[in-house]
Every structure is written in structure tokens, then in C-alpha cells.
């Protein structure tokens, strides 16, 4: 039995300890906002926050997640919600499938660096692929979010 803390709530699961966190979240616990894209940590669709930092949940054995604070796209944190608002305002998504991961990576970046410059945004966001090609809008929404936060 493994106990996980996801979005502020504890979940106890009986699974193969090597099962990646991604599949525990999606298939066992049932939060489907976190996406499967490649299974190899290459595309970032499966990003979740682990103690505030973005990690590829497709690579993280669930047994290593005990005692960690996991936040998914369905969770609530200040930066995530501010970014989600910007995403909607700039009409960022096309198909939307990669956007959970993009938002989590961006949240992680702002958690560590509230005022990223362009190179820092490019560097951080290079962990994620968007096949529809919404990168320009993602960058725009991150900048918009930072501006809004700095105003308030």
C-alpha cells in the first residue's frame, strides 16, 4: 500500500511500486487532466508539480512519491490558476492536449522565478512539445500573466 498526497488529499493505492505516477493518477485515482504523450519523459504532456517543481510523471515510480506534495492540473496553486486565466484570455490552446503539461511547467518556472526573461522562458518551456504549434501564444500568456501579477 502506498499513500500519495495529490491536490491536498491523501490517496492510498495498492499497485506495482514501479508503476509510474502518471498511470496511478490517471487509471487508479482517476484524474485524467494529466496526459500521456510519450512515456519517456520527452514531451512534457504528463507534467505534475512535485513539491512545487515540474516533473515527468511518466518517469516517476509511484513508490518514490510517498511524502511528496503532488499537484496536478486539477489542483489549486496561485501561479497555476493565474496562468490558466491568461491561457483563456489569450485563447492559447488549439487541440489542448499538451496544455496541462505546458501549464504545469510554466507554473513550476514561476514558482522558482517570478520574472523570467525570454531565454529563461524558452529554456524552461523546451521540456514540452505542442504539435499544434501554440508556442507563440504560450509565451505570450506567460508574459501576460507575469505582467498582471506585477501590476497587482
Amino acid at each position, binding site marked *: 500500500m502506498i499513500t500519495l498526497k495529490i491536490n491536498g488529499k491523501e490517496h492510498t493505492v495498492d499497485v506495482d511500486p514501479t508503476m509510474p505516477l502518471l*498511470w496511478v493518477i490517471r487509471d487508479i485515482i482517476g484524474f485524467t487532466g494529466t496526459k500521456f504523450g510519450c*512515456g519517456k519523459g520527452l514531451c512534457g*504532456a504528463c507534467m505534475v508539480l512535485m513539491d512545487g517543481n515540474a516533473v515527468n510523471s511518466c518517469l516517476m515510480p509511484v513508490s518514490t512519491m510517498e511524502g511528496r506534495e503532488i499537484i496536478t492540473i486539477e489542483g489549486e496553486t496561485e501561479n497555476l490558476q493565474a496562468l490558466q486565466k491568461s491561457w483563456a484570455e489569450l485563447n492559447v490552446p*488549439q487541440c489542448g492536449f499538451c496544455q496541462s503539461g505546458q501549464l504545469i511547467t510554466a507554473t513550476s518556472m514561476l514558482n522558482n522565478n517570478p520574472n523570467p526573461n525570454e531565454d529563461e522562458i524558452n529554456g524552461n518551456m523546451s521540456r514540452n512539445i*505542442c*504539435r499544434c*504549434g*501554440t508556442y507563440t501564444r504560450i509565451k505570450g500568456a506567460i508574459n501576460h500573466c507575469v505582467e498582471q501579477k506585477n501590476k497587482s
Partner: protein
Amino acid sequence: MDPIKNISRRGFIKGIGLASGGLVLASTIYSFSKCNSETELVSEFNPNLFVQLNSDGSLILVASRSEMGQGVRTSLTSVIADEMEADWDRVIVKQATGDSKYGNQNTDGSRSVRILYQKMRQMGATVKAVLITAAVKYWGVPESECTAENHYIIHTSGKKIGFGDLVDIAKDLEIPKKVILKSPKDFKYIGKNLPSIDVENLSNGSAVFGLDKRVPNMKFAAIKRCPVTFGTVKTYDKTDALMVKGVLDVVEVPLLRKAFGSLGGVAVIATNTWAALKGRDALKIEWDDGDNASYNTESFMSTITANVQKAGQVEKSIGSVDDAFKKANKFVDATYQLPHLTHAPMEVPNAVVSVEEDSCEVWAPIQSPQAARREVANFLKLDEAKVIINVTLLGGGFGRKAKPDFIVEAAAISKAIKGPVQVVWSREDDIQHSYYHTVSAQYLKGALDSNGNVTGWLHRFAFPSIGSTFKPGTNLPQPWESSSAKDIPYDIPNMQIETGKADAHVRIGWYRSVINIPHGYAINVFADELAYEAGKDPLEFRLNLIGKDRVQETNDQYKYDTAKLKHVLKTAATNAGYSKQLPDGHAIGLAVHYSFYSHVAAAVEVSVVDGKLKVHQVNIVIDCGTAINRDTIKAQMEGSAIFGMSLAFYGKITAKNGVIEQSNFHDYQMLRMPDVPKIHVEIVESNDDPTGVGEPGVPVIAPAIINAIFKATGKRYRSLPLSDHGLV
């Protein structure tokens, strides 16, 4: 322009019946037969349901095309709402199930808006007319004194009544056969910027894609398919697979040798996806690879390259190219080679299927729900009426999800295990068992006179045809696969288009913008090569090549218009600062192409420093007739620029002994944020009929990059991807 908001965002809701007591418009729209030539023919009338107005004023509009990021759920329904004078905030969009009553639902060929625009307008205008008649009855006033505005009927006296309050009267009224459509100047939503109706759900994880679908007692399945296309299972040992925790069963999936049939293999069924994948790894299978084990893309490229060096089948001939080459002051020739590509949508193919005794229900991200229904019904030997296809959101499609093979697989497994199952493809499955964009060789030869005018043009190409997927053995392009080379409106007195033979050894399929990628590439790069050989500026040279204003003969209402072609090209060049001084080492390359009835040009600024390419700026100009949702069109052009750059930089699928050598995003790479240039999009103002948007932005990107690299460095790259040349 401020975007219009739908504050309620009730987007993708489930479980709304269309017969719950509101006003349901039973209208008629045309149904089209599937036709590769893009000339849809009216075959029959079907009654269809697209609008439901409830007495609380809520308005349910049905989207009959699949949403894969192109914004179709928003664009189609906003057209109804505009003509109806409905309040966009009251609109709920419901996705149609795969059913012929909704007309053709194939979401491909960049044609949803093009085909349905006028019909959706009529649908909205009809509802408006009925509501006005209802108000006339209610108030006892003349019709001429009533107008519709923002979900109300308003009388000249100033009194008004909400749409919802008219439902009881309206539902007993006759539906008018003829209605008056709005003047474009009065459009409220059409031509403006509407955000996606789904934007909030897509940003908070609540949107339901195929992979997110869950039904009671559903199991998960992963299939091991033969590494070689159409290979079959000889023997397999499931002992180890069954020992994996969570694995429930192992079953064989049949190979169905038809266009959308299952590839066949061995499926592992489990309580979760991870166990299914792990169990699959533990299978021991001996394959009969079959004929395609001989497929090596490297030697295949040599074969088709040799085929285009010799005379082929003549598809079109004007004047005499032989004479032109004899009399030429100078001739130029070049061979272009492009590899296979695969779509790699972020959401892998997947499907949930529940087969019951005499019925079947499907939930899947599918571009062709009616083809899926037909294939599943055929496979299960059921009436189509007994098969329900629920279309989820698609996490990207790009043509891959136009083929319902993965749904047939799920149907086969559900039938075998007698319960609902979700088939999940891994990324490796997706890259290695796709319907590939074709591999091509093209030879072009041009004759120049002493003034540098082009007097002869020979274009010969060979590539495995999509026809081979439907009719095995097909080894010449289908007529529609030649048209993007045949129809170029260049003002050249002697032209000849020829095709060469090419056999298919993998499944060949549609990929965003299809054959326009190789044709648009070769034609645009070769025109640029001719310009330099003629000693002329590529822009002026190209404008002369297109020649005087004229309209290409076509057998439909859409016109290949040289004035539009020149306009988009000139505008793209101007927007890019073509004639301005650029930073040292920078250069602008141009490309222009007509596809899916839209005229599109790109002007791309690049530099090559220390042998490494940087794309600084992409300028795209599109003339797509009437713009329905400007922000969506802009987004599609931005996406096309990235899609085109990805294939130019990295796109290459190769096969060795029939096995695809790439497997995931490390060796089939996509553009990432650090390589993204500034992208500027201009949409030409037009009141002409709307034309394609989803695909026509793609073909111009790669050739514009190649032409820019030549201008910057003097080096001409005639094959892709650029990673093969060490440039990226």
C-alpha cells in the same frame, strides 16, 4: 479587435437529449458522397437536427465535425448563432454522434467551414424566421414591425420578448423553406475573434479526450503488432505476460487487409494501462514478416529517383517541352527528395469500445465517425443503426485520426473479452505503425530563353500513392494526387507533367496538406533556382512566371486566381521587409501555393551562422475568402508555420528491412519553443466564399526556408530534413 466571450463556457457537455421539449429544428441539409476529387455531389436529402432552443433561452447547437484544435466547434456554431441573432453567451455546443442524419462528417480536406458555411447560415436564419413568426402571432402585429436582436424579438413599439419565451408557440409552426440571409456588414460573430468555446476546459484538465474516457468495468489493452506492415503472428507465448500484476487476459487481434482494418497482433488486457504495456513487453511472439520485410527506404529512394530520370506517364502536356528544351538558351534541372513523415498527434490513437450482444458503442477521437461506424458494423456484422459512435475531443489529428483502424482493434478486443475496453497506442506504436505521408522523388527541368523567360517546364514525380491503401498494388498517383502539380498557373508555353511508378510497402495516408507538401516544395524551390539561373530577383521573376491576371478553369465555384496568388506573394514579401536592408547574413526566401482552394504565401527570414540555421521571422498571408473566425485562422497559420518548420528541420521516417527505425520524440523530433520565430499573419479581406484554412499554410514553409538559406549562403538543399545536412 476585442474578442467576443462566451462567459458561461458550458462547452463540451454530455447527456443533453435533443428531444427534451424545446424547439428542435428539423431542417434539411445536403448529404455528400465521399469523393476524393473534392467535388462533393448531392446524393440525397436527410433530415438533420442542429438547433435546440429551450424555454429558459438556452440554445444547444450541434457541431457535426470533429474538433482537433482547428476550432470547428466554435466556427460552425457561431455561424448559426450569427444568422439567428442569438446571444453567444447562451450557446451550448453539443457534438454530433457519427450518423448520416448529420450529413457528411468527415473532418478532413480543410472543408468543414467551406462546405457547411451556407447551410449553417440557413439553419440560423430559419430559426430566426420561425421566432419572428411566433412573436407576430403572440403580439398580433405585422411581421414587418418585428426584428431579432441578441436573443430577443423586438417590436417597433419597443416591447420585446426573449427567444426562450417563444418556444411554445414556435414549436408548432411550419419551418419556412426560403429565408433571407444577413448582409455581411451586419455580421456579429462571423469575421470577428471568438475564443474557442472549449478554451477553459482545455486549460483546466476537465476536457475529455478519447484517452480520458472511462466507462464502467472498462479494461485497458495494448497490442503488439508485427514490426513489418501486414506481417502476421506465427506463434506466441503469453505465460510471462499473464504473470504481470494487473494483466487479465491475452487475445489475438485479426489482421484485416482493408484500408481501415486492424493491423492485427496480440493484445494484452489489464486493469490499467501500465500493466497492459508491461504485459505486452513480456509477450514472446514469432512473426511471419511477409513481403514488406524487403522495404528499405534508402534503396527505395534510389529506385524512385531513377524512375523520375526517365520518361513517365504523361498527366498533362501543353505545347512541346522537347522543342522548348531544343531551342532553349539555357536549361536547368534538379531532383528533389522528401522522406516519409508521420502525424504524431500529441494524443496517440486510442478508442473505447463496448460490444454487446446485438449492439456496440464507441467513444473515440475520430475525424471520420461515419467511416468508423461502417467499419465497426461490418466487422461485427451488425446494422449500422446498432452502432453508436461518440466523438470525443481529439488531441490533434492531422489526418491520422481520419483512419478508424484503432477503433476496429478495440471492437475486436471488446468482442473477445465480452466487455468494454480502451485500446491505448504507445508513442512507439504511433510512430511505427502509422499511415505514413508518402516518400517522394521529383525531377524538374526548365528552359530559359535569352531574356531569362521560362519557355519550358517539365515536372516528373514518383511516390507511393494513397490509392495503394485502398487498392493494394496501386503504383501510380491518383488524379487528385497530381493536380497540385498539374494546375499551377504558370504562364509557360510548353509544360509537361509526368508520373513515375512507386510501390507502397507501408500504409500510405493523408497527412496535413497531403501531396501539396512535396509538390509545393519542388515547384517553389525550382522556381527560385530558375530565377537565379536567369539572373533575376526571385520575387519579380515569380510574379512574371504567374503572369497576367486570370482565373484557372475549374469545374466548381472556386477559382484559382492569379491576381490573388500575386497579391498574397507581394504582401508577404512586403510584410517581411523584402526590399529593406537586413542584418548581415540574413536573407528572405519566398514561396506561394494554392491548396484547399486558398491562396497562401510565406516570406521567411533566416540566417546561417557557424553552419547553424536560425529562422528569425515567418510572414504568412492567406486569402481564404470570407474569414469566419479571424483568431482561429491566425492560430492555424501560426500552427502551420511550426508544423512546416518541424518537417523541414527534423521530419524523417525511415524503414530498414520493413521496420520503422524511429520510435519516439528523441528520434522523431518536433520544433520546441527555443526555435520558434516571430510569426506574422495577414488575412486578406474578402467576401468570396470561404475556403480551406487548416492545411494550406503548411506547404509554403519548407520551400521558403530553403530559398532563404540559398540567398543567405549560396547553398541549395534539395532534400529534407535539414538535420540530415547538419543545419539544425
